[in-house]
């Protein structure tokens, strides 16, 4: 099918409408001869839409929305076009071993034995910390839990990290430091009750289109609903806003503190809430110290609307109006994504959004919540909840805490004090050490050679002669395979069964619909085979399938605040997802946390309505966090700010979406978006080839000139493997979350 982007969007529009009528996607022929429908979850973003997979002759022929899941039958067009991805011609069907520079077909035994030997050799020579695992939010929960258990529990190596470090580690840090526990307070149902949406650092329209449609519908159905969008670009999300605050990149801390300042000055706060349920803290000399409400007020004094206007470029009156709307609505819901997370002060920015909710008491009631959106389908359930990051252990535990380690040792049947006590290497540190301190790495279902920041620096290490890297992957064209020594062909998406956990703490079962092609196998089985060949006791990984892993993980969760013991496999099969906590098989799941009568972790006889059980004092924390600039600000040499992101048509590094002929035809290439003023000054016209340069590299991209970017800003999407935009981005990291600042670096452009 040969379509352009505009036609693609028209098909999307028609598909949405047809799905409302339960007619299936517009692009699908009316009768695809579906023999059976199998319940699943979409493979793309963190929205986690429920899908129905239509199967005929062991092929996926159609995908439509699950009317019983949270998305109510809606899907974006990417999800509806998943059949082309499943049956892409470059699916990997047999193991490969690099011989004389070329990946060459091999048997499973050869590939497994070679990988196990390399890992054992590294550990014998350099110790357990010389190996590592790099996963992603695209794996099933069972796969992430198992890999984490194998490496941290079996090999005693905490070098377990993954793509969520690049994506949402700051959101984790924000939730943990404010509320004491990770993951959102509320659920998607808050979208239907909010009367004010505060969307900051999220292009929801393109990155989470089904949720955006829900916001747009809410606004359309209630004329009192207000939408505030904070974004340096006039995105499609911004275009439905009542207020668009076109902020100077990297200045949101000043904006958020100014909004708090206004809320207090105009007495729009809710003292009955924050005096009872919040505590105030700051970091001094590297340590958290208690503060008072008056300290907080004094701290905010300098963040006047006028000062914030100077820093942010947003008119003072608009900042005042935004604060008033936020505080005076009957129910405010904040939503954010990479714009806040991918920053050197990402955790702080998350804290300051939570501050606004705690100050105004806009939490724990329908429509009142602070909600982090996520980029991958199972980053929440798979990676965050299973603790598959270098500093974490399962269900909210942390490596550095001895009690937590001892709890996991008991749950995993290990001797006391046997887990390694130090956090492992986080994403950029792991790849930075590859070939030197880290000799052998296993990558599961992610594409770091395209997605890491400042990626040239890390691909040098991927070429290091002292490194060994095995990759479990479904597709033959992933950039990372260029550097792999062994490749294991993996079952993809609905070719195996498992659980996905989306942004709202909902766990849904992806059922097996078809067999994988050729010799491709489920990753759970690959991981078990590898572990036992590496010397892990088979009794430690006695799993024949993902259902057995799920049962163990469910049991492990029972001793934590995540408790989803009640989510048996059979129950997940019958339902379209459940939200944890869900401690018993008759528990309906939890839509609102920390509230008595809603959250099973709050005792029914607790004297207070709210109880922040993750913090020792039972209160949430309002943090005093000052404004700090980005790591790399524009200067005379590089006078522009470059930011990166997604577009609606493509997803992440494009390894899936570029398999879809309609998408490839509509939107095949990256581009650089430039404001008309900058373009005029630099004599750049629409469609011109433009050289984009940063301190780390340069790329030539076609120009899209318009008024989407504010003056001084350029934007490039990162899906295009032919143009590795991450060769230009900066790898400065947040001190707390270790998440890189993809969103801001200094750049210059010129006609090529």
């Amino acid at each position, binding site marked *: 099918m040969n379509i352009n982007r505009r036609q693609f969007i028209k098909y999307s*529009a028609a598909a949405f409408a047809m799905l409302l009528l339960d007619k299936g996607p517009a692009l699908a022929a009316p009768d695809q001869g579906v023999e059976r429908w199998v319940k699943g979850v979409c493979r793309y973003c963190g929205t986690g839409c429920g899908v129905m997979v239509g199967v005929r002759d062991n092929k996926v022929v159609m995908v439509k929305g699950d009317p019983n899941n949270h998305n109510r039958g809606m899907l974006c067009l990417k999800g509806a076009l998943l059949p082309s991805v499943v049956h892409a011609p470059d699916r990997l069907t047999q193991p490969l071993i690099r011989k004389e520079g070329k990946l060459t077909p091999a048997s499973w035994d050869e590939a497994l034995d070679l990988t196990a030997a390399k890992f054992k050799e590294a550990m014998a020579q350099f110790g357990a910390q010389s190996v590592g695992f790099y996963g992603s939010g695209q794996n099933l929960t069972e796969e992430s839990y198992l890999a984490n258990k194998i490496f941290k529990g079996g090999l005693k190596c905490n070098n377990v990290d993954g793509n969520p470090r690049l994506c949402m580690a700051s959101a984790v840090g924000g939730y943990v430091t404010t509320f004491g526990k990770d993951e959102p307070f509320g659920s998607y149902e808050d979208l239907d009750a909010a009367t004010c949406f505060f969307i900051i650092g999220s292009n929801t329209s393109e990155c989470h289109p089904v949720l955006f449609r829900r916001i747009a519908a809410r606004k359309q159905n209630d004329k009192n609903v207000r939408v505030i969008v904070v974004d340096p670009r006039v995105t499609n999300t911004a275009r439905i806003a009542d207020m668009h605050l076109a902020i100077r990149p990297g200045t949101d801390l000043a904006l958020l503190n100014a909004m708090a300042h206004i809320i207090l000055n105009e007495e729009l706060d809710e003292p009955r809430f924050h005096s009872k349920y919040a505590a105030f803290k700051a970091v001094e000399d590297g340590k958290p110290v208690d503060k008072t409400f008056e300290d907080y007020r004094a701290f905010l004094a300098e963040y006047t609307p006028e000062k914030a206007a100077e820093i942010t470029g947003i008119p003072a009156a608009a900042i005042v109006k935004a604060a008033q709307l936020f505080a005076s609505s009957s129910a405010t819901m904040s939503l954010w994504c990479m714009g806040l997370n991918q920053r050197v002060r990402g955790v702080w920015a998350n804290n300051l959004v939570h501050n606004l909710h705690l100050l105004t008491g806009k939490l724990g009631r329908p429509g009142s919540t602070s909600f982090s959106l996520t980029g991958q389908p199972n980053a929440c359930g798979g990676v965050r909840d299973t603790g598959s990051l270098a500093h974490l252990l399962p269900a909210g535990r942390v490596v550095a805490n001895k009690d937590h380690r001892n709890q996991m040792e008991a749950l995993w049947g290990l001797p006391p004090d046997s887990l390694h006590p130090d956090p492992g290497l986080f994403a950029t540190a792991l790849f930075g050490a590859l070939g030197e301190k880290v000799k052998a790495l296993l990558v599961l279902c992610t594409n770091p050679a395209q997605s890491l920041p400042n990626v040239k620096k890390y691909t040098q290490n991927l070429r290091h002669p002292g490194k060994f890297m095995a990759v479990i992957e479904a597709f033959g064209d992933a950039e990372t395979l260029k550097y792999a020594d062994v490749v294991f062909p993996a079952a993809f998406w609905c070719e195996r069964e498992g659980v996905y956990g989306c942004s709202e703490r909902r766990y849904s079962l992806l059922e097996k619909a078809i067999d994988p092609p050729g010799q491709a196998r489920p990753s759970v089985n690959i991981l078990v085979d590898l572990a036992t060949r590496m010397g892990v006791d088979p009794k430690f990984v006695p799993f024949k399938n993902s259902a057995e892993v799920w049962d163990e993980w469910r049991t492990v969760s029972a001793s934590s605040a995540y408790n989803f013991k009640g989510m048996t496999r059979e129950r997940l099969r019958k339902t379209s997802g459940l939200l944890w906590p869900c401690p018993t098989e008759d528990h309906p799941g939890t839509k609102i946390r920390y509230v008595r009568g809603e959250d099973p972790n709050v005792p029914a006889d607790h004297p207070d309505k709210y109880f922040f059980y993750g913090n020792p004092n039972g209160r949430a924390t309002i943090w005093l966090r000052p404004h700090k600039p980005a790591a790399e600000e524009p200067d005379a040499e590089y006078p522009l700010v470059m930011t990166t992101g997604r577009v609606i048509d493509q997803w992440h590094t494009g390894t899936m979406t570029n398999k879809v002929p309609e998408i490839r035809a509509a939107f095949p290439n990256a581009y650089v978006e430039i404001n008309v003023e900058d373009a005029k000054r630099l004599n750049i016209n*629409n469609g011109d080839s433009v050289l984009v340069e940063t301190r780390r590299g340069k790329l030539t991209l076609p120009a899209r000139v318009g008024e989407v970017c504010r003056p001084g800003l350029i934007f490039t999407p990162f899906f295009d493997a032919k143009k590795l935009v991450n060769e230009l981005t900066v790898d400065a990291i947040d001190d707390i979350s270790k998440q890189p600042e993809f969103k801001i670096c200094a750049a210059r452009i010129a006609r090529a």
Partner: protein
Amino acid sequence: MAIASFVLQMEPGRGAEAAAALSRVPGLTLEFSGEQNLVAVVERASAELPQVESGLKEVPGVLCVITAYLNIEDELEAAGSC
């Protein structure tokens, strides 16, 4: 130009009459005609969409109009990628 899709719920038996009226709306394509529902995709300037939506409600036989999708990419045309 913006692109929006609408579901029009119809009085039974009046689909053909409505479809004929809708064929005269500039920028509108009828994507589906059922007994009780029509699906229309409209391509117009975003500022004109509220007026279009009001107009759809006035089409004979239309009981209700639901906006299914909205994409406001005015810049697309300017960017020359259409």
